[in-house]
C-alpha cells in the first residue's frame, strides 16, 4: 500500500505543476490591475503607478513571472500580496481558523442530518417520512444560500433581533460568555450553509442506500434472519458509503475554501472572502496561493478517498 501511495504522490507532481501553470496564465491574462484605485486618485502621479507596477514585476513577461513564482513556491515563499503588502501565507493563516470553524461546523451539521435522514428514508422508500424528507431536500437545494442568508437575517436579526448578522473575530469577554457568543454568531451562517449541503447530501445518501438495499446479498442476509438494524448498518451502509465518501472527500477542499457567498453575506473573514476580494482587486499572488492550495487539497483528498475505499470494501485493492 505504501508503494501505491508513493506512486500516487509522484503522479500528483506533474498534475499540480500543470494546474499551477494554467492558473497562473489564466490569472495573468485576466483583466484588471491591483492598483486600480490609484488611477482616479489625483494625488498619485502616473510615474508612481508605473513605479509600483515595475516594483511588483507586473510589466515582466508572463512566463518570467511564472518562473519566479514557481521558484519562490519551491523555496516555501508563498509570495507577497500587492494589496496588503503582506506575506500571503500570513494572510491565509489569519483566516483559516474562522473558515474551519464556520464552514467545518456547517459540513458536520450537514453530515449529521444527511446520513441518518438519508439512511432512514431509504429503508422505508415512499413512506410519509421519505416523502417529507425528499420534499424538504428539494426545497433545500433549490434555494440558493444568498437567498436563505438574507431571509435568515431579516427574520432573526432585523425582525426578532435574536442573532447578530455581522460575524466578528473579535468577541469581547472570556470563558463561557465567549464560547456562547462564538456559537451565537455562527448559528445563522452554519445553518444556512449546513442545511443547503444537507439537502443535496440527503438525496445522495438515500439513492446510494437504495442501490445497495436491492442487491441479492442483502436479501440473503435478511433470509438468514438478521435483524433489520444489523442488516442496514453492517451490510448496507458500509457498501453504500463508498460513493458518499467520494462526495465528502471532494467537498473537504471546499471546507478550506469556504463558502464564498455565505462568507460575503455574514462578513465572515474566511478564505472564501479573501479569495473574492483578492480576485476583485486583482491581487494575483493571493489568488494564486489560495487556488493552488485548493488544487493540492483536491489531489490529496482524492488519494485519501481511494484509500478509504479499500477499507470499506477490501475487494478494491491497491495496485
Amino acid at each position, binding site marked *: 500500500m505504501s508503494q501505491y501511495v508513493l506512486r500516487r504522490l509522484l503522479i500528483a507532481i506533474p498534475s499540480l505543476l500543470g494546474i499551477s501553470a494554467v492558473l497562473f496564465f489564466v490569472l495573468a491574462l485576466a*483583466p*484588471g*490591475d*491591483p*492598483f*486600480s*484605485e*490609484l*488611477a*482616479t*486618485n*489625483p*494625488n*498619485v*502621479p*502616473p*510615474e*508612481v*503607478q*508605473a*513605479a*509600483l*507596477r515595475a*516594483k511588483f514585476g507586473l510589466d515582466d513577461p508572463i512566463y518570467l513571472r511564472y518562473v519566479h513564482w514557481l521558484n519562490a513556491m519551491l523555496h516555501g515563499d508563498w509570495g*507577497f*500580496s500587492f*494589496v*496588503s*503588502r*503582506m506575506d500571503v501565507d500570513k*494572510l491565509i493563516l*489569519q*483566516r483559516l481558523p474562522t473558515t474551519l470553524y464556520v464552514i467545518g461546523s456547517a459540513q458536520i451539521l450537514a453530515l449529521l442530518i444527511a446520513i441518518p435522514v438519508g439512511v432512514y428514508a431509504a429503508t422505508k422508500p415512499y413512506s410519509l417520512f421519505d416523502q417529507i424528507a425528499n420534499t424538504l431536500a428539494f426545497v433545500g437545494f433549490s434555494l440558493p444560500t444568498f437567498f436563505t442568508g438574507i431571509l435568515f*437575517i431579516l427574520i432573526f*436579526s*432585523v425582525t426578532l*433581533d435574536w442573532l*447578530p*448578522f*455581522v460575524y*466578528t*473575530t*473579535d468577541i*469581547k469577554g472570556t470563558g463561557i460568555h465567549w464560547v456562547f457568543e462564538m456559537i451565537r454568531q455562527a448559528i445563522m451562517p452554519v445553518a444556512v450553509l449546513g442545511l443547503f449541503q444537507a439537502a443535496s447530501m440527503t438525496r445522495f445518501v438515500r439513492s446510494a442506500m437504495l442501490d445497495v438495499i436491492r442487491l441479492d446479498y442483502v436479501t440473503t442476509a435478511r433470509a438468514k434472519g438478521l435483524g433489520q438494524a444489523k442488516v442496514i448498518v453492517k451490510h448496507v451502509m458500509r457498501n453504500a458509503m463508498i460513493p458518499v465518501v467520494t462526495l465528502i472527500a471532494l467537498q473537504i477542499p471546499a471546507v478550506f475554501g469556504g463558502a464564498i457567498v455565505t462568507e*460575503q*453575506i455574514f*462578513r465572515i*473573514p474566511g478564505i472564501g*472572502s*479573501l479569495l473574492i*476580494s483578492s480576485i*476583485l*482587486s*486583482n491581487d494575483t499572488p493571493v489568488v494564486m496561493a489560495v487556488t493552488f492550495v485548493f488544487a493540492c487539497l483536491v489531489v490529496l483528498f482524492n488519494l485519501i478517498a481511494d484509500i478509504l475505499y479499500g477499507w470499506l470494501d477490501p475487494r478494491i485493492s491497491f495496485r
Partner: protein
Amino acid sequence: MLDKELRSMIGDVKDGRMDRRSFIKRMAAVGLTAPLANQILALGGVAMAEGASTYKPTKRGGGGALKLLWWQGPTLLNPHFATGTKDQDGSRLFYEPLGCWDPDGNMKLVLATEIPSTQNGLLAADGKSVTWKLKPGVKWHDGKPFSADDVVFTWQYIKDPATAAVTIASYRDLTVEKIDDLTVKITFAKPTPFWADAFVGATGQILPKHLFADFIGSKSREAPTNLAPVGTGPYKFVEFKPGDLIRGVINPDYHMANRPYFDSIEMKGGGDAVSAARAVIQTGEYDFGWNIQVEDDVLLRLEKGGKGKTVYAVGGDTEFIALNFTDPNVEVDGERSSMKTKHPLFSDPVVRKALSLLVDRESVKKAIYGRAGRTTANFLNGPEKFVSKNTSWEFNIEKAAKMLDDAGWKPGADGIREKDGKKLKLLYQTSINGPRQKTQAIVKQACQKAGIDVELKSVVASVFFSSDVANPDTYPKFYADLEMFQIPLSQPDPSQHMRRYLSTSVATKENKWQGTNFPRWVNKEYDEAITAADMEMDPVKRAAYYIKANDLMWQDTVFIPVMHRLKVEAAANNLRPVISGWANETDNLFDWYREE
C-alpha cells in the same frame, strides 16, 4: 464680488476695523462659505481661524467601545502605501498629520500649535515657504518623543521614488528642514498658494523616524510597522487582520485634553453598502457605517423606526459624463481614440450642447441620489469660492431637437438623426454600479426621444478604474463616445484636480494611457488659466482663474456634470461623528463622542 471691495474688507479685518465674524457673514451673503472666507483672509494676511470644535465630554475615556463598519476593509496600515481611502482611514486611527480639515474646510490643528499665516510670520508673503511649530510633549505610542526629526524624515521617506509612496506628489517638489526640535520649515520651488498640502489631512500622516529609518526606499515593504503602526493618535494599535478587522485601545497619553472619548475602537471590514447601512441604521449592531452609496429610498426605508440615521458631508465630488474629443472607432498607428483623429459627431459643438440639454438632472436626483446629491452645471463644485456662478443647466428635449434640426441633423427613416451619412449613434459607458446604471437609463430615454441612439455599456469597476495597459475597457483609454464616473476631490483646493485636463496630460498610447486628460480636450486658454492659478498668490485672482477654467469646460461641453455628490455615512442616533467633505471619515475622530 468686486476685487477692490474685497481687498478693502480684508484690510479692515487686518486693522481691526471689522471683526472676523462680520467679514465671514458678509462673504456668506455673496455665496462664500465660512471656511473659504477664512482662507481668503489667511492668504490676504489675516490668520486663518482654527476650526471650531463641537466636542463636549469633559474627561478622557469612559465612552465604551466605538464600532465602525467599513464595507471595504483596510488592507494595509501604512498611509503612504494606501491603495484607496479605506487604507488612509485605517492608518489614520493611529497616525496623525500636523493639521486636518473640519466639516467647513477650516484647518484644525493636530500636531502643530499654530496655523501658519503671514500675520504670525509663519507663512512667507511670497508663498515660497511655510513654517510649522510643533506641539511640545507629544509622545509616540511607544513612549519616544515626537519631534521635528520625524517630520523631516517622513518627507525623506515619501520623496524617495524607491519607496513608491502614493503620496509622493505632495512631497517631491518641496524641501523640509528642521529649524529646531519643534520647528520645521517647508520651502517650495515656486510660489505655492495651497501650502497646506504636505503634512495635512489623510496624506499628511507623519511616521516615527525611529521605527522607519531602516526601511526607506527599496526596503520599505519590509518594515514590521507597516502592519503594526506606532503613531501619536488617540488610539493605540492592538490588532490588524487585512480586509477584516482593526482594533485599538485608548491612548492614555493623548496630547489633546479630554480626548479621546471612547475606550476602544474597532473597525470591521467586508460586505456591501446596503447591509452596512442595515447593521448601523436598522439593527444598531454598529455605531458608524462608511460610504453608504445606496439609493435614497432604501435609506429612508431603513431609517423608519431604526436605531440610526444617515449623515451627510458636502465636498466637491461631481458625477459627470465626459465626452470623447477623439474618434474611438478609428485606429491610427494601433491606437484608438488617437489625438490624430477628431470625433465625427462631437466635432460639431451643437451635438455636444444638445446632449447636455438631454441630461435630466432633476429626475436623476429624484430617482437616485435624493438627499445625497445636488444638481449642478459645474464640473468644479467646491470649495465654494471656486464655484462658478456663470453657468446653468437645463433639461429640454424640444430645444435639443430644434438645435439639431437647425444644424442639419435630420431624423432618418429609422428615427435616428443623421447628417452627411453620419448617424447620431453613441456608445455610453460607465462602471457597474446601481445608481450609475439607472442614470444611464434616464439619459438614454431622453436621447431616444430627441432622435439620438445611445448604446449603454457597463464595465466592472476593477477594470474600468485600472491602469492596465492591456485592457481596452479602462476609462483612460476611453474607447467610447461618452463615459460617466467621478473623480474625488480630496482636499479643499482644486489645483491637483484641475491640472489633470491640461493639454500636456492627454492620455495616449505613448504615455501608456497614464495621462490624466482622458476626454483628450485641448484648449490653450484653459492651459493658461490653470498654469497661472498654480502660481497666483492673490486668492481672489486665483479663484477667478479656476472659475474661468470651469466655464471653458462648460462652454466646450467637455463634461456634462450630472450631480454634485455629498458624502453619505450611517451613524447611530446618539453618536456625534465629525465628518468633513474635505477629509477622510476618520480624520476628525478625536472629536467624536456619544450623547448620553
